[in-house]
């Protein structure tokens, strides 16, 4: 595998504000790569840096091994799909798709053949003559994809393209985007703040916070083995129990928290005596006993079909959430009931506290 897009210590500053700080990354040919992070974390700036609308203040962007410095967005081998899609309302669907070829001086006949092929690829073969405004949201989405693919980019960049769609369509478009990516075999770089999108579609994910990359990995490692407190808290639901490490042994650490002493995995090899946070996901918190145990009072039950969310309050007021699978629903306590909660040490993880105010 060759690196298709390479970010080499890229920093982007706007005036006194640092949007991206020292990001280094290699994205491989044919990979579906996502940048995941809260709004303002710099992920859109990274995308605009790769597409050429923003020049890095420091560092280099290389695409296919070639340094992109000084090369404008109209001459880079990338195509960007905008959050707003930015389809041209005064052109027909076919003219939108063929626009990139038209400005490259491709003849009318060759253009029509490509447009037809791409409209077929996104299942819009009979819609070429329509106005963009006459299409539905999902269809417009697919026109934007076809328009970007028409210029045969080496890398396709997608800036939260699904955020304007309703939930059902968004889930459908996830599968569709993934299928299109497999069919054309291009490198996709995807920007999103929606962890569901990032986890389901991506080969690899970079979780970003405050202009820096916190962790890069596939969906499983991001979700199951977060390396920082920010990643553990941002990706998926979790219960965070701050405290201090009191003992370490066999890759596990024991943390003294307000609710008691708990053991969890210790991937960062924290030493005894340092401040730490123990994270345990709601689906691993069961009523009944376990290696780690604490007492809490059930506050509220929220039934959501496949799972039931259980809101709890510990003796000191700490709020906890647990998730009961449908099979375990009979074990659900009534609101107000006091119960014991337990979780296994391998399901909890001990990480340094997130440096939120650096």
């Amino acid at each position, binding site marked *: 595998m060759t690196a298709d897009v390479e970010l080499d210590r890229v920093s982007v500053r706007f005036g006194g504000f640092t949007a991206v700080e020292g990001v280094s990354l290699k994205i491989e040919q044919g990979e579906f790569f996502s940048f995941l992070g809260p709004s303002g974390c710099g992920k859109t700036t990274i995308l605009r840096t790769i*597409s*050429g*609308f923003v020049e890095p203040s420091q560092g280099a962007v290389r695409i296919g091994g070639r340094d992109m410095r000084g090369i*404008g*967005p*109209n*001459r880079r081998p*990338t*195509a*960007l799909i*905008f*959050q*707003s899609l*930015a*389809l*041209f*309302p*005064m*052109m027909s669907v076919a003219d939108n798709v063929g*626009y*990139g070829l038209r*400005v*490259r001086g491709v003849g009318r006949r060759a253009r029509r053949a490509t447009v037809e092929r791409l409209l077929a690829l996104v299942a819009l073969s009979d819609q070429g003559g329509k106005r963009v405004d006459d299409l539905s949201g999902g269809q417009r989405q697919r026109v934007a994809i076809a*328009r*970007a693919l028409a*210029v045969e980019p080496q890398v396709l960049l997608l800036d939260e393209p699904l955020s304007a769609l309703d939930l059902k369509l968004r889930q459908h478009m996830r599968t569709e985007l993934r299928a299109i990516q497999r069919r054309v075999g291009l490198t996709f770089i995807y920007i999103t703040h929606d962890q569901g999108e990032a986890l389901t579609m991506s080969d690899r994910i970079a979780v970003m916070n405050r202009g820096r990359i916190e962790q890069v990995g596939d969906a499983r490692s991001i979700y199951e083995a977060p390396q920082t407190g920010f990643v553990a808290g941002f990706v998926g639901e979790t219960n965070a129990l701050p405290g201090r490490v009191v003992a370490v042994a066999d890759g596990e650490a024991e943390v003294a928290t307000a609710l008691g002493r708990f053991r969890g995995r210790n991937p960062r090899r924290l030493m005894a005596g340092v401040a730490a946070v123990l994270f345990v996901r709601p689906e691993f918190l069961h009523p009944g006993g376990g290696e780690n145990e604490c007492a809490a009072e059930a506050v509220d039950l929220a039934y959501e079909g496949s799972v039931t969310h259980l809101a709890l309050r510990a003796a000191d007021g700490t709020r906890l959430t647990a998730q009961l699978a449908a099979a375990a629903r009979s074990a659900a306590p009534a609101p107000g009931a006091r119960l014991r909660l337990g979780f296994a040490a391998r399901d909890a993880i001990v990480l340094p506290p997130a440096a939120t105010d650096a």
Partner: protein
Amino acid sequence: MRSAGTHWVLLLLPFAVIAALWIAATLERRGGPGFVRRNGAVVATYLLLAVGLWALVMIVLPQISMVELSFRPKLPAAQMGGPRDVYTLENYRYFLFGSTVSTAHWNVTHLHAFGLTIVASVLVAAFDFALCYPLAFYMAQSAPPRRVRLLLLLLIAPYWVNEILRAFAFRIIFATSGLLNTLLLGAGVVAQPVDFLGLDVGMYAGLSYAYLLLMVFPLYNAIESLPHSQIEAARDLGAAWWRIHLDVVMPYARPGIASGCTLVFMLTSGALAAPLVLGGPRSLWFTPIVYDRFYQAFNWPQGAAYACVLLLACVGFVLTVLRLSRLSLGQITR
């Protein structure tokens, strides 16, 4: 004098039109909440009366009386309403063929001025568009808000000065011993002062400047609503900057372009101050000729006919252009 019947028609017409508007408003109510329901009876009545009266008294009636006047012969006051006061095409014939005693086949002077006015107005509109488009684009898409406000102020401030005064200011700039010539002579660019006014440079500059704002604002409004992402999308797809303007910005701003060009064209072809004050001795703009019909020749019917010809030509021209560019009148007033 005119017959009493004409006066009655003129007096009753406003009320007839208001009644018609009222009926139209009532009919509109059939589909959903109508005009009266939406605004309340008092406001609705006020709107109908105010708009109806304004449109009629200020626009429709004077125009009708001008059209009527243009078909009458020029007569001494004593003979008006007399046996010789009959409808005639004489004034229009004069525009085309000139005086009955002249030997020329056509009224060359007036026809030439008329044609020149139309052509020059088109050129002025085109020139203003070329001048204003980059400015409007910059203000609408690139400039920071603070600079936009400053630019708007700089654009508007000169228009606080009266139009005639502005025309005289241009005279001072372009006169043989004026500012521009002094500068050019001082810099050694020319050896002799250039007769800018005689060459009509002053007049065309004055005409171009007179209605500049009416080009800037429609363009600015139209371009401002274009999402910046469309420009970036075109750029990302490989378009050069001039293609982006041609393919994305201008088609999007078409209603604004049409609106600006129509306004500038119409007002330029009917402009009076700039041609009167800045026109060289050989320049023949059509509006001073119309003015002369009224106030030099005291031939009001003929002046009315000339004004009608100009108005009809301009309206016809504008409608043709709109038809060719496939825009409706409603779109450019948005």
